[in-house]
């Protein structure tokens, strides 16, 4: 370890935040860029499955809440791209990586939203899992990322409550609504568990990331925490978690749960999810169709600046 590396690691061990202009190992920078931009991309792609129900939300209030939520996701994407930019990569570069299919985003957004209950399930389960991942990251070693996480977590927990509220309304609604709610839980449960990533045994890079404090807990730890938190919430509103192996283990003080179908996980990751193509295409179209607008804004800004300069001269 070089002296620089040693002093870098000492600062991390002492819980001192690393700031953009400080020295950092190339691998730390690269890993962080990958992690932050994947997270940013997930926020942006994540706008689509929920956006699918904005025009069909069942009341004005639900419509406003949903729209505000999807708007927050755009905002989160923005914070995160800014955090990534402090590491020396531009938003445009990152977007090109997303559009070209090179960059990854959370696979959960490759599932379709089929009913209004899916909007509840996403808020409750998907945001719930996201928070579980993100809360520890508020303490991560990189300053801008840590601060972005603090803002994001505050909003996400709000979203999660709203999602749970939708589910509760449905679960206590008409028989058709109850069926809708249970069906959404059935479809989103397992993909939510997969959001924590592969089993620790199969997880690469984890040790280094933990030493750098850009990963705080192990995948399996967080997954267990999510299950322990969510199962009672499901029970409370009378929904059944779709896992025959699920049961409380008094000895461990945790719920035991069934095997995850990792085949499906890797299929979706590798591009074969129900909506992978659709999500990417929608994103690329928005980006390409917006090009002339961005160019116009730049051209106008340049003209304005030139005029101001001419006046000043």
């Amino acid at each position, binding site marked *: 370890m070089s002296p620089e590396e040693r002093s870098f690691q000492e600062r991390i061990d002492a819980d001192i935040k690393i700031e953009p202009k400080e020295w950092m190992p190339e691998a730390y920078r690269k890993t962080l860029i990958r992690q932050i931009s994947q997270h940013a991309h997930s926020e942006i792609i994540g706008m689509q499955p929920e956006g699918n129900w*904005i025009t069909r939300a069942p009341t*004005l209030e639900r419509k*406003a809440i949903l*729209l505000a939520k999807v708007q927050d996701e*755009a*905002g989160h994407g923005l914070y995160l791209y800014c955090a990534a930019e402090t590491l020396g990569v531009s938003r445009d570069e990152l977007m090109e990586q997303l559009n070209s299919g090179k960059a990854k985003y959370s696979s959960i957004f490759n599932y379709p939203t089929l009913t209004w209950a899916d909007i509840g399930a996403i808020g409750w389960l998907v945001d719930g899992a996201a928070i579980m991942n993100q809360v520890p990251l508020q303490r991560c070693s990189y300053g801008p990322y840590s601060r972005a996480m603090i803002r994001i977590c505050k909003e996400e927990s709000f979203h999660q409550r709203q999602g749970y509220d939708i589910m509760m309304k449905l679960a206590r609604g008409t028989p058709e609504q109850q069926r809708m709610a249970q069906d959404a839980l059935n479809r989103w449960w397992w993909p939510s568990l997969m959001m924590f990533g592969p089993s620790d045994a199969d997880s690469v890079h984890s040790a280094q990331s933990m030493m750098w404090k850009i990963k705080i807990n192990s995948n399996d730890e967080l997954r267990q925490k999510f299950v322990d938190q969510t199962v009672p919430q499901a029970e409370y509103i009378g929904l059944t978690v779709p896992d025959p192996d699920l049961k409380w283990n008094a000895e461990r003080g945790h719920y035991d749960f069934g095997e995850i179908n990792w085949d499906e996980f890797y299929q979706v990751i590798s591009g074969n999810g129900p909506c992978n193509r659709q999500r990417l295409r*929608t994103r690329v179209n928005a980006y390409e169709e917006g090009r002339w607008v961005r160019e*116009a804004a730049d051209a106008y800004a340049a*003209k304005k600046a030139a005029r101001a300069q001419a006046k000043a001269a």
Partner: protein
Amino acid sequence: MSDQEALFEYLLRLGDNALVLGHRLSEWCGHAPALEEDLALSNVALDLIGQTQLWLNLAGEVEGKGRDADKLAYLRDARDFRNILLVEQPNGDFAVTMARQFFFDAWHYLLLRELAGSKDGRIAEIAAKSLKEVTYHLERSRDWVLRLGDGTEESHRRMQAAIDDLWMYTGELFEADEIDRAMLREGLGPDPAALHEPWLGLVKATFEEATLSLPQPGWAQRGGKRGIHSEHLGYILADLQFLQRAYPNATW
């Protein structure tokens, strides 16, 4: 038509304008040219949905038949909608959306400024609250007219085409009918015609700065205020109302 009925119709117009334009803007969510615009378009849409709730709840109160904003928004068919034709026009490209928005915002701003002095305290209150939001909407849409008009050759061409296409829907904003006249008589709302000059002044000045041409005055499309819409509205409602129609006895 009783004064009460006229007031109900008038409030529907205010609420339906906000509802339909908010819906159109919400269609952009996730498809905007930049993340900043996703945020900004959603902001405007959210303000308009909020205004919809205020106007339509008041409309329901005035009607006195137990209909609230949701019932009015989700359970009327197209012929009972009272929004102006402008707001239901399709989003088109970003220039069309911004031209539509600028025409609407400039008028909305002037209208709300008048309504903030309405004799009916409930109207005045909603208008005053909305005026703050719409002041910002206007600033923003005006800014985009400038940017696109005086941006690149392509953006100029698209903005000019958008203006030329939408111009025929602006006349309706300033035409008074018996309902507007009843509002004027009672001191509840302004004479629509009186808003035309300041509106045109603002539009002209903006277009001049943006190097855009003002279209020739021409035939005005009208009908929205009395429920004669374009063919676009029906499709908006098919989506908007699907869940309320498909699950009639549910609460959400």
